[in-house]
C-alpha cells in the first residue's frame, strides 16, 4: 500500500517523473560510455606503451674524410679511396649526463662470432660456384727479387689448396710499393689468397690463366687485429709479417709457431663457419625489429624472464633454420670465439652469403683465440626478416639473437674488431615520449661530434591521438558522473526536501520512520532503476558507434609503421563481456549513488522527533 501510494503520487506529477526517468537514463548512459571509453583507453594505453619503444642510435661523426692512396703494383699506379678519420674515439660515458634517463644505457655492444660446425659446407652448397681458398705454404724462391711479383716453387702445403704442391707460381704483394726481397733458393713461408675452390689449379696454371708474372697470386700478411676493452689496438701494435724464411728450428720460434697457428686456424673453413651471435636486452633494440621489418614467425620472442635470468635461449632466422634444418625447441651449441665491436653483423655478413671482415685470426701474442663462452642454446623462436639489407639497420642472414646476460664468459681478450660508436653497435632506449627532453639536455652538454638519432616507431604521432581519446573518456566519465550526481541531487531535492511536509503528515498519521522512508523512496527508486536500465541499454546501443567515431577520428590518421610487417592491430572492438561488465558496474554505481544520496536526504529529515518538522504557522 505504501509503495502503491508512493508510485501514485509520483505519477500525479507525470512530467517531472518522466523528466527524471529520461535525465537519469541519458546521464547514466553518458557515464557508462565514459567508463567504457576509459577502460578501453586504459587497455590501449597499456598495449600502446608496451608496443612502442624509443630507441636512440649514436654515431661518432668523423673529424674528416680523407682521400687515401693505395699502391697497386699490378697497375703500377695508386688507387684512391676515402677513409673516415676519427681522432679520439668518444666514449659512451659522455652520454651519462644530468637529465638523461635510460631504460637501456648507451654503450658499445659487441656481437660475437661462433664457429658453427658444418655451416661452411652448407653455405658453399647453397651459394655454389666455389669460394676463395686461403693457403699456407712453404715456397722456394726461383729468383732473387722484391716480392711485388716473384716466381716460386711450392714445396709444402700446410693448409688450403694442396693442389698447388710442386707447381711454379707467381706470388706477390701488390699493395706495397717497395716490398722486401726474397732470395733465390731460400725457403719461405707465405699465406696466399685469391684462388677459387672450383678451379682446376693445374690446368689454370698451365694455361697461364692464373698467376702470371703480371698477375701474381696475392700474398697475405699475418698479424693480429686484437683490441683491448679500452679500445687499444694491441694487435696492430704487434706488427704484421708478410713472409718469413724457414730455417732449422723455425717452427720452435714464436713467429714459426704463429705461422703454424695461422695454418691450423684454417682461414677458409673459419671464414665460412662463422655464425654471428647478437646479444641483446630486447629485440626492440635491433632496428629491424623496432621498425617491424623483422618479426618472430614461429615460437616466441625471448621473454622478459629469459632476458632477466640470462637464459640460454635464442632466436634464429628463417634462413638459418632452413639451412640447418632447425626447429623451435631444438638446441644449438654456440661456442663464442670472437667479439666484434666495430659493426653490426649485417655490415659484415652480406645478404648473398658472402661477407667482408676486417679481422685477423691471431691475437696480439700471435696465438689463436680461445673460446670464452660455450653453451647450448634452446631455440625459442624463428624470426623472419622481410626485406634483407646490409645496412646497420638490417640483420645478417644467419644472425642468432641471444639474451645479453646469457653470455657469461669474459670476452675482453677476444675482441678482434673495434671502432668508434656507430649505429651498428651503439643504441640506447629512453622512455617513450621523452625525446625532446633528452635532446634539450643533450644539447646543453655541448658535445657535437656525436650524431644521435631517435626512432620511436611513430609513438609521438600516435601518442597525440591517444591523448585526445583519453581526454574524451575523462570528459565523458566526469561529465556523465557529475551530470548524474546533479540530476540525482535535483530529484532528491524535488522529491524529498521539497516534500518534507509530506513526511510530517505521514509522521502525524503515525507512520514509522521506516514506513516514511519507504513511502518517500520506493516509487522514486523504481523510476530511477528504470531510468538507469534504460541508460544501460542506451549505452549498449551507442558504444560501437561512439567507439568507431572516436577511432576513425584519432587512430588511423597516423601512419604507423611504414615497415613491411603488419602494424600492431589495436583491437577496436570491446568484447560483449567487457561491455556487460562496464554497463553493470555503471548501473550499480549510479543506483548505489542514488541510494546513498537519497537515504541521506530522507534520514536528515526523519532525524529527531516529528515535532521539529512542523511548519511554523503564522
Amino acid at each position, binding site marked *: *500500500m*505504501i509503495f502503491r*501510494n508512493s508510485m*501514485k*503520487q509520483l505519477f*500525479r*506529477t507525470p512530467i517531472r517523473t518522466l523528466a527524471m526517468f529520461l535525465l537519469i537514463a541519458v546521464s547514466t548512459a553518458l557515464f557508462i560510455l565514459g567508463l567504457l571509453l576509459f577502460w578501453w583507453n586504459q587497455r590501449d594505453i597499456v598495449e600502446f606503451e608496451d608496443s612502442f619503444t624509443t630507441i636512440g642510435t649514436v654515431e661518432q661523426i668523423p673529424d674528416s674524410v680523407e682521400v687515401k692512396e693505395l699502391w697497386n703494383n699490378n697497375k703500377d699506379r695508386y688507387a684512391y679511396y676515402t677513409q673516415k678519420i676519427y681522432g679520439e674515439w668518444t666514449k659512451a660515458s659522455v652520454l651519462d649526463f644530468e637529465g638523461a634517463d635510460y631504460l637501456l644505457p648507451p654503450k658499445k655492444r659487441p656481437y660475437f662470432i661462433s664457429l658453427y660446425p658444418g655451416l661452411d659446407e652448407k653455405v658453399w652448397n647453397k651459394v655454389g660456384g666455389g669460394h676463395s681458398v686461403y693457403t699456407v705454404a712453404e715456397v722456394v724462391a726461383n729468383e732473387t727479387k722484391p716480392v711485388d711479383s716473384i716466381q716460386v716453387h711450392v714445396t709444402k702445403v700446410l693448409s688450403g689448396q694442396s693442389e698447388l704442391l710442386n707447381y711454379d707460381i707467381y706470388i706477390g704483394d701488390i699493395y706495397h710499393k717497395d716490398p722486401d726481397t726474397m732470395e733465390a733458393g731460400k725457403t719461405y713461408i707465405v699465406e696466399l689468397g685469391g684462388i677459387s675452390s672450383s678451379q682446376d689449379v693445374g690446368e689454370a696454371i698451365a694455361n697461364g690463366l692464373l698467376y702470371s708474372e703480371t698477375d701474381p697470386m696475392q700474398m697475405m700478411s699475418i698479424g693480429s687485429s686484437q683490441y683491448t676493452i679500452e679500445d687499444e689496438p694491441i694487435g696492430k701494435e704487434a706488427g704484421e709479417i708478410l713472409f718469413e724464411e724457414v730455417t732449422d728450428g723455425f717452427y720452435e720460434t714464436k713467429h714459426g709457431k704463429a705461422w703454424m697457428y695461422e695454418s691450423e686456424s684454417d682461414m677458409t673453413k673459419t671464414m665460412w663457419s662463422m655464425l654471428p651471435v647478437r646479444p641483446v636486452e630486447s629485440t626492440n633494440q635491433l632496428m629491424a625489429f623496432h621498425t617491424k621489418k623483422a618479426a618472430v614467425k614461429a615460437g616466441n620472442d625471448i621473454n622478459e624472464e629469459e632476458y632477466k635470468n640470462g637464459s640460454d635461449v635464442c632466436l634464429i632466422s628463417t634462413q638459418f633454420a632452413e639451412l640447418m634444418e632447425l626447429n623451435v625447441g631444438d638446441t644449438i651449441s654456440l661456442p663464442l670465439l670472437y667479439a666484434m665491436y666495430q659493426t653490426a653483423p649485417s655490415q659484415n655478413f652480406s645478404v648473398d652469403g658472402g661477407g667482408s671482415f676486417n679481422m685477423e685470426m691471431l691475437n696480439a701474442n700471435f696465438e689463436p683465440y680461445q673460446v670464452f663462452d660455450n653453451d647450448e642454446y634452446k631455440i625459442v623462436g624463428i624470426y623472419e626478416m622481410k626485406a634483407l639489407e646490409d645496412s646497420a639497420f638490417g640483420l645478417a642472414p644467419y644472425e642468432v639473437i641471444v639474451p645479453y646476460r646469457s653470455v657469461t664468459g669474459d670476452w675482453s681478450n677476444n675482441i678482434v674488431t673495434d671502432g668508434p660508436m656507430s649505429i651498428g653497435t651503439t643504441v640506447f632506449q629512453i622512455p617513450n615520449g621523452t625525446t625532446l627532453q633528452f635532446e634539450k639536455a643533450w644539447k646543453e652538454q655541448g658535445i657535437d661530434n656525436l650524431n644521435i638519432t631517435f626512432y620511436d616507431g611513430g609513438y609521438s604521432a600516435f601518442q597525440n591521438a591517444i591523448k585526445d581519446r583519453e581526454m574524451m573518456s575523462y570528459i565523458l566519465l566526469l561529465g556523465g558522473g557529475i551530470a548524474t550526481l546533479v540530476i540525482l541531487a535535483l530529484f532528491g531535492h524535488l522529491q524529498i526536501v521539497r516534500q518534507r*511536509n*509530506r513526511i*510530517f*503528515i505521514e*509522521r*502525524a*498519521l*503515525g*507512520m*514509522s520512520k521506516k*514506513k516514511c522512508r519507504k513511502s518517500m523512496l520506493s516509487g522514486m527508486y523504481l523510476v530511477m532503476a528504470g531510468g538507469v536500465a534504460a541508460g544501460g541499454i542506451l549505452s549498449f546501443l551507442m558504444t560501437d558507434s561512439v567507439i568507431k567515431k572516436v577511432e576513425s577520428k584519432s587512430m588511423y590518421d597516423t601512419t604507423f609503421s611504414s615497415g613491411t610487417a603488419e602494424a600492431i592491430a589495436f583491437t577496436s572492438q570491446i568484447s560483449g563481456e567487457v561491455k556487460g561488465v562496464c554497463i553493470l558496474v555503471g548501473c550499480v554505481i549510479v543506483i548505489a549513488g542514488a541510494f546513498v544520496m537519497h537515504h541521506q536526504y530522507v534520514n536528515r529529515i526523519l532525524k529527531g*522527533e*516529528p*515535532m*521539529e518538522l*512542523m*511548519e511554523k*504557522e503564522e
Partner: protein
Amino acid sequence: MIHDRKGAASMRKSCCKVNGMSKIRVENVSYAYRNSYREAPVLRDVSVSFEEGKFYAVTGESGSGKSTLLSLLAGLDLPQEGEIYVNEKEMKKLDRDRLRQKEVAVIYQSFQLFPLLTALENVMYPMELNGMKKSEARKKAEKYLRKVGLADSIEKHFPKTMSGGEQQRVAIARAMAAGGDILLADEPTGNLDSENEDNIIRILRALVEQEGYTVILVTHNQQIAALADVQYQMRDGKLLEKEA
C-alpha cells in the same frame, strides 16, 4: 470535575486531581525547545486532565505554547519533565507512532492534506495504513466524507482545487478514519471565514456529542472557545482554567 478554587481570582490553576475516566492526563509537564545555542522554555510544570467525551478549548497569546502542548499530547515529542498519560497509559512507554495511527488524530490550521492525493485517497490513507482492504477503505472514506458534509463530487478533487473549508472537512474525515476517539485541533478555523468556521465547529461538536470524541481545540476566537465544555488559557507557560 472538582476544581480547586482559592481566593477571588477568576483564573485558577487547574488541579491534577482525577475524577472518573481521564482520556489524557498531563502531570507536571515542562517543555523547552532546544537547539545548540539556546533553550527556550515553553511549558512550565503544566498539569491538566482531559476527560472522555468532552470538548475543550485552549486559548492564549500567540507563542504561548498551545501548539506545543497539542504536539506533546499527540506524542510528536516527549516532555523533558513530567508525564503524559493517554487512557491511563504512560506516553513514554507507548509506541507513539501507533498512538497517532490509532488513537489520537490532529488537524491543523493549514489542513496538512497530501497534496498529490485526492480527497478520497487522503481519507483512505490512515485506514489502508491500518491494513484495511482498499475497497473497504474506500467505502468507509466515502461515509466519513458524507459525515463532514462533503458531496460525492469532491472525492476526486485534489486539495489545491478545494476551498479551505472543504480541505479542513477532509482533514476531519481523515482524522475520523484513523479510528481513535481523541481529536486535537490546532486552530482549525484560523484560515477560514466565519461561515466555514461555524461549520467546522459544528462538526467538532457533533463528534463530541454523537461519537463520544474528546476534542481539544486550540483557538484565538473567544466566542468559539466559549462553546467548549471547558476553557483553558495558556499564559507564561502555564495552563489555567478559565471560568465559564
